[in-house]
């Protein structure tokens, strides 16, 4: 039978993969995607807990996470668009005007 910590470990792995994406990708859109991936890993833990503890709250919080994710994606993409307009690039490592 599948125990709770199977799901937890799975989500941990997915989360870590998302972190890799955030850290190393040099394309803002992909970075944003990786963030979505991390959010999904968290959602997975929520759902697993709500299933194994038999409470609805986990699913409700997933609902809210989705709302936040949608907002975050929309705003992020809007920012990306306006950035891309100013400097024809999506590379986060070229956007360092705020360094020392």
């Amino acid at each position, binding site marked *: 039978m599948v125990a709770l910590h199977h799901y937890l470990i799975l989500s941990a792995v997915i989360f870590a993969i998302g972190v890799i994406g*955030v850290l190393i990708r040099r394309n803002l859109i992909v970075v944003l995607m990786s963030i979505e991936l991390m959010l999904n890993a968290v959602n997975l833990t929520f759902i697993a807990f709500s299933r194994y503890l038999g409470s609805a709250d986990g699913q409700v919080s997933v609902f809210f996470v989705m709302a936040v994710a949608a907002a975050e994606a929309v705003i992020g993409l809007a920012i990306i668009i306006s950035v891309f307009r100013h400097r024809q690039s999506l590379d*986060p490592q070229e956007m*360092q005007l705020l*360094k*020392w």
Partner: protein
Amino acid sequence: MVSPEPSSVAYDLLRWMPLIPLLASGFNLFFGRALGKQTAGALAAAAVGASFALACYVFWQLPAHGIWRDTVYTWIESGSFQVALSFQVDALTAVMLLIVTGIGFLIHLYSLGYMAHDEDRVRFFVYLNLFIFFMLLLVMGDNLLILFVGWEGVGLCSYLLIGFWHHDHNNTIAGNKAFIVNRIGDFGFILGIFVLVTELGRQGIWTLDFVELQQHVKMLEPATITLITVLLFVGAAGKSAQLPLFVWLPDAMAGPTPVSALIHAATMVTAGVYMTARLHFLFILAPATLALIAVIGAATAFFAATIALTQNDIKKVLAYSTVSQLGYMFLAVGVGAFGTAIFHVFTHAFFKACLFLGSGSVIHALGGEQDMRKMGGLKGFMPVTYWTYLVATLAIAGVPFTAGFFSKDLILWQTFSHGATGLWSIGLITAGMTTFYMFRQLFMVFHGECRVDAHAKAHLHESPAVMTLPLMILAAGSIFSGWLGAPEYLWGSRWEHWLEPVLGVSEVHHDSVSTEMIITLLTLGVVVSGFLLAFVNYRKTGAQTGSQAGGGLFYQISFNKFYVDEFYDLAIVRPFTALASFFARIIDPWVIDGTVNGVATTARRFSNIWRYLQTGNVQHYAAMFLTGALALLAYFLGQL
């Protein structure tokens, strides 16, 4: 805080007495100019008149042994320690109420005329009403804290009013002087309050309420009480211009004359006396303090009188005479005759206010001239002022059947019968000097040939009715107010009985009427001699008035006020400023700023190193963030 006294009843009319002047003050402050200057003044006077009417009502309604209380709300509440904003009226307060509001009302009327030509008299009336408010707070407060608030408030108003004509730098300096000297006194005062509260609190009684204090002070051991009373007396000395803190009062004459009359003669300066009377239950437990007070009172009386002998400024003379009269009051307090002290406060309020207002009327007529050497022969020009002035002079000199006669002789008799013969003799001589300088002033101002310069003489005139009416009322008061406290061999005193519920059974020894009369006759003799001296020297005032240039050593010392100001300047002010400039030049720039700047520089150095962590690359930040998170997670993992 309901008092255990059976006869203490709630009576919430009281709060209006201080409130009305406050409201008037605030209204004038904001809308006074829109209202028109004359109207603003009238409003202010009306407000004080209203609280005067209230005071009279309360005075008549008040039962002989009653205390009326009006608790507005609980101001401070900390555990069992509770201070309410609440007023009380008993016999003592009732008297003070009459003085403050009554004299205050008259002086407001007078000011309508006196300040008629001043530009911003709206501000003047705002201050004046504010003063009345604080004074009422002082005398009506039923606990030390409210009394202290009033105490500070009147100090503030006095400062504001002394510096009222702030265009002249000297006035502001005088204001500062008064304020600072009062600070010294108030420091002692509040220290006294602290000690009192903490000591009682150690006994488990957390209160500032007078009635409760009166019940509980017995708990304290005498040494503590002495300490407390001495500290409180420092405050009183500051406020009531006793040695060595009297120096501010003469300079306070820089303010407008009505202010001098109201604040610096009739009401505020007597606050110290009121406070001691209010806390008499403390003071009578500390005989040492009482002795100290008596000595200082007598000394002040004598000392100020000697200075007053030679002054040429009409208001300075009155100022020093005020100081010396206050000395009398504290002499009375010192010999434990609180009722008598208050009695003298009462009478003195009348004639000293009358004198000040009279001098004010003279100054007004002369267009601001204050030097008596440039006056003389004004009798003809301003009869009303002259006659009222004469009456007041007789009263302060203590001519029989005037107010001063009764009160001053009562003080002297109390002193004598208290056994303090030395103090009594000093008081006696002072009485003589009082007569001398007062009549000297009278002659120099009103008699002899007129030395007024032509320009001022052109429009020399009697003051308008609004100014002379208060003069007449006060003159009448300075005769009849004393009759309340006549000695036994006359119709006897009703005063003592009135104050008995508050101050306890009076300690006046009426044992030997003969001795009392002998003492009185002795005093009269001194007074008459003083008068004759003045009469001989100053009747037809000529050369002598200008002759302060010569004169003996004693004359010089007296004329220069014993060099007290110079001494203070040398002994206190200069070292203080020197210390201050030392701190300003050495400590502040080098030590303080050095430390602060040093910290800043170090921070900048370090941040110059660390700032290279800020690569501006989001992913680097994320990596650092993740590293930190990893460290934390690893730590918790170790915990598991």
